[in-house]
């Protein structure tokens, strides 16, 4: 860059027409592909929405556009099935599991990331292995265990394990804790913080994005979870969560596609709203999982 001031108004040099045309065409091609893909990705949501506004007969016909539009479907869903009950159960599962998961995973991740001790590497490896193995591997004895404790039929078998550290969360938090400069911790130590207090105050404050991501993922996971609630509460509709209720919605309550799609949308709504409220935390969290996998 020349430091000499331009004597006259600067005239930006335009690239030659051929270059501009090529760039323009490339951009158009790229955007057209993106738009086409985006439409394809959005279409299912749109079809679900349209169907949820149809009448019974329309949903069983080949028409795509609802006529008349029946908003009352969304109301009918609640009269057809104990939707509130399911929602409250889901909330109970999500909230209790998420709190326990954060409280138990943070200290473990801290010990794995920031303390020096014999067996640390091996412990981390075990966490990774636990992360890799499908839950089906341990499901039978666990079911037997919960059955012996007479807790099958309740949500406790899906909530309680979260209070004892979750492998994925420990992994994600550890990755983040490793990036916290040691000096923050040293400073706190010198300033009179014990290790427990460092975890409770300094680390949690510094790792807020990671903890938010872990909590969000946990909420999302528990909200979407189907396999474990099916296993443990399948025979007790009193404790069904939304995903379970929704899966049985059609066969159990003899309802048609229009109401099923309305229910489907209602179940999707909370996560989508949550996403728009916490979009950044989501994206950062997802990115964090991919970094140095």
């Amino acid at each position: 860059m020349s430091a000499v001031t331009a004597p006259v108004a600067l005239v930006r040099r335009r690239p030659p027409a051929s270059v501009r045309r090529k760039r323009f065409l490339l951009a158009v091609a790229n955007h057209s592909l993106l738009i086409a893909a985006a439409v394809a990705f959005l279409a299912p949501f749109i079809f679900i929405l349209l169907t949820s506004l149809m009448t019974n007969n329309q949903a069983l016909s080949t028409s795509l556009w609802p006529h008349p539009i029946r908003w009352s479907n969304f109301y009918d869903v609640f009269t057809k099935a104990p939707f509130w009950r399911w929602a409250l159960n889901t909330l109970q599962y999500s909230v209790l599991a998420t709190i326990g998961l954060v409280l138990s995973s943070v200290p473990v991740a801290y010990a794995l990331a920031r303390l020096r001790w014999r067996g640390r590497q091996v412990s981390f490896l075990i966490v990774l292995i636990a992360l890799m193995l499908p839950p089906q591997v341990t499901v039978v004895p666990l079911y037997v265990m919960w059955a012996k404790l007479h807790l099958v039929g309740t949500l406790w078998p899906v909530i309680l394990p979260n209070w004892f550290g979750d492998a994925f969360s420990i992994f994600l938090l550890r990755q983040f804790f490793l990036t916290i400069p040691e000096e923050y911790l040293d400073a706190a130590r010198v300033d009179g913080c014990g290790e427990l207090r460092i975890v409770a105050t300094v680390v949690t404050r510094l790792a807020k994005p990671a903890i938010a991501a872990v909590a969000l993922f946990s909420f999302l996971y528990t909200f979407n979870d189907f396999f474990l609630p099916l296993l443990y509460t399948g025979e007790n509709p009193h404790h069904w969560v939304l995903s379970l209720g929704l899966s049985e919605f059609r066969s159990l309550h003899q309802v048609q596609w229009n109401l099923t799609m309305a229910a489907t949308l209602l179940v999707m709504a909370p996560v989508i709203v949550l996403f728009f409220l916490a979009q950044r935390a989501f994206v950062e969290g997802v990115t964090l999982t991919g970094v140095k996998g």
Partner: protein
Amino acid sequence: MRLRPAADAGAVSVPASPALARRPGKRRAAWRRRRLVLLLMSPWIVGFTVFFGYPLVMSVYLSFTHYDLLSSPRWIGTANYRYLFHDDPQVWTAVKNTLWYIAVAVPLQVLFAFGIALMLARARRGVGIFRTIFYLPALAPPVAATLGFVYILNPATGPVNVLLGHLGVQGPLWFHDPHWSKPALVALTVWGVGNTMVIFLAAVLDVPRHLYESAELDGAGVFSRLRWVTLPSISPVILFAVVFNVIQGLQYFTQAYVAAGVAAGQASQAADVTAVNLGYPQDSTLFYPVLLYQHGFTDFQMGYASAMSVLLLVVSFAITLVIVLNSRRWVYQAAPR
């Protein structure tokens, strides 16, 4: 990132020099520290023992028993494994379905995620909106998404076949045709590729600009740059995505279970709905975890289901190991960590 590389690793080994003799105070301090580690690690130690180690051992034990949860397990040697490998007519189908799903869905997920990430990285406008659109399906609860897909792909009244009909094409039977049910599930999976896509996008944007610039100066075209700069730079992320999605594939259950149940549509008064609908149509969506669920939790053959678990454990371990070991060949390592 490690701030004090020298500080890494286990306990201090003290040489036998008299100047370095152990002091009682030091032992006390070391004990204090160990207690701290123990305290911090305790949730995981308990959790691992109770919810992982113990059931893993029990799985192996139960796999050699006949156990219906009503009377105590009865030792029957390898009979479960014999039935598993010789007699069970569904196991081989389930294994094939699962492998098919992994072999098709995982590469497609990686390709789609990578393609979209590349287009997004190149886009000038609306990146935020596009990213949201591509990410949203990943958030949709699997049960809800599956219900949506079963409806949308209904052969007679579903919008997809209706639109195809307007184009003069007779759409396939989707979830009602054993040849199309798995592809329909794969479409559902690819629709939810958002997580992988976001990771890829971050990785692609993270590739240092100067690498592209120097490649361009060296005369590399668009594809050469993709091949020699982008791909090697993000290969660790690709590996992560492959491993992660393979693991997901091995435990693929919810979508298959729901799709089969809803598509079969058999009402609850006929026999035992769940078990008979699993794998609909014609066992084409009978994945290994689905079969395991059927044996374990509709038939309550806990011993046999444990044998299936043990096989799944061995196979998961082997597959993950093979991928990770092979990855050295094609994954570029920035620096030893």
